[in-house]
């Protein structure tokens, strides 16, 4: 008779042997390791909703235009120049001598095919909304393309940074499903192997047209648990991690093996107040009450003491990095006496009851703690805040869209990564938009004029006016611009990116 224990042991041994992984030709010195908390759904960036797909996309693909991390300005990339022929036509000149990973040259044909694919409603590409203003793309010659837009489109160049250039040949010969797993780009790295939810291995594109990456291999590991990710960073298993919780910064900085770096990011946090009365009548329809709320809170000390300095005070919802931001407009300063008076003038001398819908810290670190501080400040002037916690971000977003989240709730806006005032004004402040709880005809006119002009100076003036209006009217309870925290191994030199798109091809060994 065969002993069961022996069978089990034998099976284990066979399994163990079967598992020994093939040796990879990489060494620690020529490999940089990056980690993400969750994996991408696809290697076809326009088909994905995930930021991770945008980040990976930057490594295998190139965009027509790209943002310089130091100046934060958009400059040429696969496009060498662009100009307006008229109000609704942009002409883009392309870089010559660029090759896709499969060896085919990059031409205007690929640009047209890329946009045709994204804009085709039948393809249901996620990125379609980003480019809805583009009507058509024409090939003028191999290295010139013309874009026709639906009305003047001031965000045209800004949006070029959000679209990877894909191969016309791959689209024609292979199709969408294949492209979801096989990126054929012109980018600095080529995908070697994707083990879903585990790891991506990329190898340097030695034919790259631009500055070649220092590290020959890029490994992107998927590590769902933050504590594990930090342990990997400290033990040398990973070189760069993002979204470090503020309370873990000390652990990393004191480890000797890694350090943290912070950068302001394009995301503004606020408490939206239901001025538009989407959820029915409420005290915040009165401007005095909204002003009182803004005057009640001492944001500066909250940023300093609760957020460890990881925030930049803003006067309205406009982020300092966005086009159109007005540096001369100063934020509300705490003034308890003035706030109390405003509340009394509004008819609430004995205070007022408010429901506050709170969300989880999915995109906003330490949101519970900062809410505690805000609520206690508001209580000082007579706001009796009843807190209602919603633990699931998906539910929260759905409720916000339905207009049922007033009279006061946590909100932050990431601008869809478009560095322009319009990218928040339209979605979060314009009357009738899903995420807007504010309604003001005067502001709507400014927004409409701003998005239909190509004149940068005129647009700046419009947005300065809009910010003054939003400040005076205290549309929402304005908080701060967020900062991201990265953990970086001491063996590499790496700059934290303001647009939250990690570019590992820019990493180099750290100078001793």
């Amino acid at each position, binding site marked *: 008779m065969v002993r*069961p224990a022996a069978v*089990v042991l034998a*099976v*284990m041994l066979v*399994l*163990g042997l079967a*598992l*020994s*992984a093939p040796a990879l030709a990489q060494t620690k010195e020529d490999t940089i390791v990056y980690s993400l908390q*969750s994996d991408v*759904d*696809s290697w*076809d960036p326009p*088909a994905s*909703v995930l930021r991770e797909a945008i980040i990976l996309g930057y490594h295998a693909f190139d965009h027509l235009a790209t943002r310089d991390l130091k100046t934060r300005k958009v400059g040429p990339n696969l496009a060498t120049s662009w100009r307006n022929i008229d109000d609704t036509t942009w002409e883009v000149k392309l870089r010559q001598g660029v090759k896709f990973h499969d060896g085919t040259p990059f031409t205007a044909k690929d640009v047209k095919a890329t946009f045709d694919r994204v804009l085709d409603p039948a393809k*249901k590409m*996620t990125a379609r*909304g980003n480019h809805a203003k583009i009507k058509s793309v024409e090939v003028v010659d191999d290295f010139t393309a013309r874009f026709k837009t639906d009305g003047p489109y001031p965000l045209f160049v800004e949006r070029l940074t959000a679209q990877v250039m894909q191969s016309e040949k791959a689209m024609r010969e292979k199709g969408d*499903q294949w492209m*979801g*797993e096989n990126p054929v780009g012109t980018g600095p790295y080529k995908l070697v192997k994707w*083990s*879903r*939810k*585990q*790891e991506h291995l990329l190898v340097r594109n030695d034919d790259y047209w631009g500055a070649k990456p220092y590290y020959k291999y890029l490994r992107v*590991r*998927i*590590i*769902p*648990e933050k*504590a*594990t990710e930090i*342990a*990997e960073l*400290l*033990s*040398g*298993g990973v070189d760069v991690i993002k979204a470090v919780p503020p309370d873990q910064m000390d652990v990393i900085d004191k480890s000797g093996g890694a350090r943290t770096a912070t950068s302001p990011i394009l995301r503004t946090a606020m408490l939206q107040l239901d001025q538009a009365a989407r959820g029915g009548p409420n005290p915040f329809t009165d401007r005095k009450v909204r002003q009182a709320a803004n005057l009640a809170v001492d944001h500066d000390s909250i940023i300093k003491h609760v957020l460890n300095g990881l925030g930049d005070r803003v006067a309205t919802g406009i982020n300092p990095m966005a086009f159109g931001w007005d540096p001369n407009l100063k934020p509300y300063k705490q003034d308890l006496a003035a706030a109390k008076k405003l509340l009394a003038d509004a008819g609430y001398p004995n205070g007022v009851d408010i429901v506050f819908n709170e969300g989880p810290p999915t995109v906003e670190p330490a949101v519970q703690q900062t809410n505690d501080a805000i609520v206690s400040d508001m209580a000082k002037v007579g706001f009796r805040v009843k807190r209602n916690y919603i633990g699931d971000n*998906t*539910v929260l*977003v*759905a409720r916000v*869209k339905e207009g049922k989240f007033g009279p006061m709730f946590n909100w932050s806006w990431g601008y*869809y990564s478009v560095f322009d005032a319009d990218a928040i004004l339209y*979605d979060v402040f314009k009357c009738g938009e*899903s*995420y807007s709880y504010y309604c003001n005809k005067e502001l709507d006119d400014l927004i409409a004029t701003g998005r239909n002009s190509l004149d940068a100076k005129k647009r700046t003036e419009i947005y300065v006016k809009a910010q003054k209006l939003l400040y005076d009217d205290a549309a929402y309870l304005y908080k701060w611009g967020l900062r991201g925290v990265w953990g970086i191994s001491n063996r590499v030199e790496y700059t934290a990116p303001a647009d939250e798109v990690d570019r590992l091809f820019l990493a180099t060994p750290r100078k001793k």
Partner: protein
Amino acid sequence: MRRYIARQIVQLVVVIFGISILSFGILHVIGDPVLLLLPQNAGKEEFERYRHLLGLDRPLYMQYWSFASRAVQGDFGQSWYGNAPAFRLVIERMPPTIYLTLAGLLVALLIALPLGTIAALKRHSFVDTLCTMVAVAGQALPIFWLGIMLIIVFAVQLRLLPASGYGTWQHFLMPSFCLGAALAPITMRLVRSGLIEVMSMDYIKTARAKGMLEWRVVVKHAFRNACIPVITVLGLQFGQLLGGAIITETVFAWPGVATLTVDSIRNQDFPVVQCAVVLLALLIVAVNLLVDILVGFIDPRVRAGV
């Protein structure tokens, strides 16, 4: 025996049918997946179009029927997130989870068998108390905490093991210990009580009376009978072990099916959740069937009794 196995297989089919209905029904009650699938700036028409595309505007029984009729052919549909067939996604991630649970089982046995035996033989002694204490401590530690502590000690401080990941035998040590430590106590107590009971049996006395060496008495005669309840309970615990695997996989970035399932639930990726739940249920039922057969194999009374 044959009829016994046949009956088990019929039960298996019923259980899986029930589970498929449950997983299908519950998911549809939770919420609207289209809300998650589309970007925040998508319009109403787009929502409606997606709902139609995914067949969510059809009556529930029709949705189930089309799901079930394809599922029996191994076609659970396309993942709504992964841009790949749900079946492939789940099958790809099955082996790491199975290896991990088997390794965890092995660790549990390696801890439980010696400790349980010693505790039984030295009953009510200091050693017995010590063994029980160790076991209870193992059960009391949350897997999550134990995992992080192991990582901090063995990866961050001592730099002996990789903190997380999958691929080499070193990667197996910490996760399987974590999982095994949670399962060891109950196994150990079973081994202990089983042995104590068996050791008082007449045939043990006979064996001793024949002048057999004590270790031979224990290993050859007592063990075989003592291990029957252990095997049965381990089979039942297999589901628990998979539950523990969810946490272990998350902590150690293990690319298994347990985390895939949890992620898919979070994303409301219906096809993957349904496929994973059905296949995992299949696995648990199959393991239990195997255990029943194994027990029958070891214990002739079970075979005869059927």
